């Protein structure tokens, strides 16, 4: 079963959320990253995400599998967009189901942090003042 997916088209959070709910779930935590109109003080008009698809899929799957081992959760999923995104579009979604909220929150936070650090996806921003850049954080 895949817990991690890349999507080159907009995806529906309600459907993904529905896939995590069952009678044992007491707490569901989710996180969504949206395209902001600014970053590091510069006005942003749009962005593009590029992935090394084979490795991103494998590494994303490892992150989710590790989350299920580390935390007392029932399940977890993550979907990350690729391609061109406009301001306000959904870039990444993480959903975690658990019996209790402690584990749901902790796992959700851990997953988004790990995905941002480990999964080979790159953001290319276009700026209102002109110019465009790949983001390669230190």
């Amino acid at each position, binding site marked *: 079963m895949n817990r991690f997916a890349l999507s080159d088209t907009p995806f529906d959070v309600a459907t993904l959320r529905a896939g995590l709910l069952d009678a044992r779930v007491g707490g569901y935590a989710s996180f969504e*990253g949206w395209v902001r109109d600014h970053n590091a003080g510069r006005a942003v008009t749009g962005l593009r*995400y*590029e*992935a*090394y698809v*084979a*490795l*991103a899929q*494998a*590494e994303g799957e490892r992150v989710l599998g590790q989350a299920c081992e580390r935390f007392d959760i029932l399940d977890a999923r993550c979907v*990350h967009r690729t391609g061109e995104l406009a301001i306000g579009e959904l*870039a*990444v979604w993480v959903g975690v189901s658990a019996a209790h909220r402690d584990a749901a929150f902790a796992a959700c936070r851990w997953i*988004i942090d790990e*995905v*941002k*650090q*480990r*999964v*080979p*996806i*790159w*953001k*290319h921003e276009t700026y209102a003042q002109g110019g465009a850049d*790949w*983001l*390669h*954080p*230190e």
Partner: protein
Amino acid sequence: MSTRITVLYFASLRDVAGIDHETFDTNAPDLRVLYIELRARHGFPLPVEKLRVAVDGEFARWDDAPRDRSEIAFIPPVSGG
């Protein structure tokens, strides 16, 4: 005997190289030397210390030797999310 490899370029590396992949024969003894050679050839600004390296879709070590017919990717710092 030289080793035939394909190198994939992503993000800023692709923009600087002007290509998204290239296939060639290399005599580099390991992946670190391979990147140093390619950095010199293409003028990549990122030093090896900033990158990770992957072979055939899995992370690899810099001191691994290039394998014949393998697909090698240099991974700039990621910025998903």
